[in-house]
């Protein structure tokens, strides 16, 4: 921004006597200026205001609920996602959408809506578990690198650089080629590949906080290392991780879809959105609806996570000008 000391900062009211609600907050959650607002409450308030993020969150919750309760109602009302009803199969293949089968049926007579719903389970599990793995590994690596510095730092960061040199999909393909195709290996692969980004973010977070003045101030007050770590470093470093993790769930879902599409991930007959798209290719001319619904499912779910992540980032960014 302008280097001129003079110009009023036009996007937020100048702080001074009479200025209201200056968000000067003690990181520990208490406050010492302005009306009593904590960082967390501030963030939640901002998040709530962001309609897109809220919409994303709502959609995610809906999908989770649908996925969890699916067993109770989907097979009965829609049809089993995996089992083939050999008695009626020839009459039920490739039906276009109707009341009975809202998304139509696939080449083996299975209800697509049901498969899409069960596919949600796959995607969500992969997304969440993979991100969990990558966050755990990433946090540990990032913490070691930042805290011990020196050779550990170089080693870990160099390794991260190596991982970064690989295009993601290719690395996942290579890893799965070795480990074997299948559901479990997908989230293991994604989790293993994702740690460098988290580690980097966490590490730079720690390092910037470490050199920040209020850590020195705390130290001058005699706070122990552990206290500093817990009460000063962690809360500030956590925010970007939360944002990144949220968006990574979306990315993980996309990666799983891509891998399954290529035949490296979930294997038939299990329902996976990516797999369904791959199966739909042969019927593009005759039954285009086969590919629409799984695609929409992927799009909306990932979008929900992306919007939520965006919203979280805006909400947690203390420096953001409102």
């Amino acid at each position, binding site marked *: 921004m302008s280097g001129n000391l003079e110009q009023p900062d036009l996007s937020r009211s100048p702080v001074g006597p009479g200025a209201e609600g200056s968000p000067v907050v003690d990181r520990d959650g208490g406050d010492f200026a302005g009306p009593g607002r904590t960082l967390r409450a501030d963030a939640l308030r901002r998040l709530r205001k962001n309609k897109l993020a809220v919409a994303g969150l709502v959609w995610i919750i809906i999908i989770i609920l649908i996925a969890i309760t699916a067993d109770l109602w989907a097979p009965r009302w829609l049809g089993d996602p995996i089992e083939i009803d050999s008695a009626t199969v020839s009459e039920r293949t490739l039906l276009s959408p109707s009341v009975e089968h809202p998304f139509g049926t696939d080449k083996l007579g299975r209800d697509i809506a049901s498969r899409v719903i069960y596919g949600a389970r796959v995607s969500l599990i992969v997304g969440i578990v993979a991100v969990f793995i990558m966050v755990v590994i990433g946090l540990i690596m990032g913490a070691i690198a930042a805290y011990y510095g020196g050779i550990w730092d170089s080693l870990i960061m160099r390794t991260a650089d190596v991982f970064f040199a690989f*295009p993601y999909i290719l690395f996942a393909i290579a890893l799965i080629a070795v480990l074997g195709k299948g559901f479990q290996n997908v989230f293991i692969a994604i989790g293993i590949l994702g740690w460098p980004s988290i580690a980097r973010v966490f590490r730079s977070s720690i390092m910037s906080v470490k050199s920040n003045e209020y850590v020195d101030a705390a130290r001058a007050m005699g706070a122990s290392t552990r206290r500093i770590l817990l009460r000063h470093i962690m809360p500030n470093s956590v925010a970007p991780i939360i944002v990144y993790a949220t968006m990574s769930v979306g990315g993980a879902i996309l990666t799983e879809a891509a891998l399954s599409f290529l035949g490296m991930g979930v294997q038939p007959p299990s329902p996976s959105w990516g797999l369904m798209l791959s199966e739909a290719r042969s019927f593009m001319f005759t039954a285009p609806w086969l590919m629409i619904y799984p695609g929409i499912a992927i799009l909306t779910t990932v979008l929900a996570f992306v919007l939520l992540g965006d919203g979280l980032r805006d909400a947690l960014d203390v420096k953001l000008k409102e």
Partner: protein
Amino acid sequence: MIGYIARRVLQMIPVFIGVTILLFILRAPGILPGDPVKMITGERAISQTLYDQIVEKHGLNKPIYVQYGRYLGDLVQGDLGESYQKGRAVTDILFSKFPNTLKLALAAIIVEMFFGIAAGVISAIKRYSFWDVLVTFSTSVLVSVPVFWFGMLLQILFGIKFKEWGLPYLPISGMSSAEFPTSVHILLPAVTLASVSTAYAARIMRSQLLEVMGQDYIRTAAAKGLSAGRVIWGHGMKNAMIPVVTFLGLDLGAMVGGTILTETVFNWPGIGLEMFLAIGQRDWPIVMGGVIVIVLMVMVINLLVDISYAFLDPRIRYGRKVA
């Protein structure tokens, strides 16, 4: 500047070595679960004698470092092994397809450059307008779209539906045909490949231009009496473009990496399609060979982009201060 280039090259070397180590770990025995012999022959059942023969031939029973040395040696000579199924050297197979992949990636970058920069500039200039909101939102959406699905949608719309409706339509498969030359065949795949990156490029262009426009030297330019257009173009863009160009360059690398999905959808005869077919056949040497080739290409491109940065930014080109 020579110093800058030298430093960049030197920095790349340990990464390069790390990459080869990582790739080696993936196929070496004992480190990861999986049978390295399978990596060579595919997953057919083979006799024990054949198994032992292969172990001998490829030195799979030697100590790790010996194997790594051999591997590195092969790599340097350009030997990526042999496709067991096809009986040809992996290198031959891949390099014959390589130019096609490159063509596609370049076409995609051009698309991205055009649309990404234009969209970014417009949304920065007309901030908060309908257009800006549209661009910002659609970039969020594009990022969430599975690339291959997007390709399939384009295929259905422009290839099938347009044909049905009697509109001029586009080819959706292969690199050339009786009806259309390559330049037309490349359209849909290029747009597909570019789609996600264009979203990012627009975002970056927008945020860079906005940041630059807030700088003091823009105010100085206005104070000299330049019109708004001249200020944006002559002063703003030149600064904002530097990181964008860098991004585009890096993206070229990422595109080369991501072609596998697009080539599969459009039957584009490049490295990606080869790899996809190989996956179906469990022809692992091709798969791993493809990975290696692409990774190395990406690294080289990244290095070149890094170096070109020095030419673009005079602060790096002329680093020394005059007293």
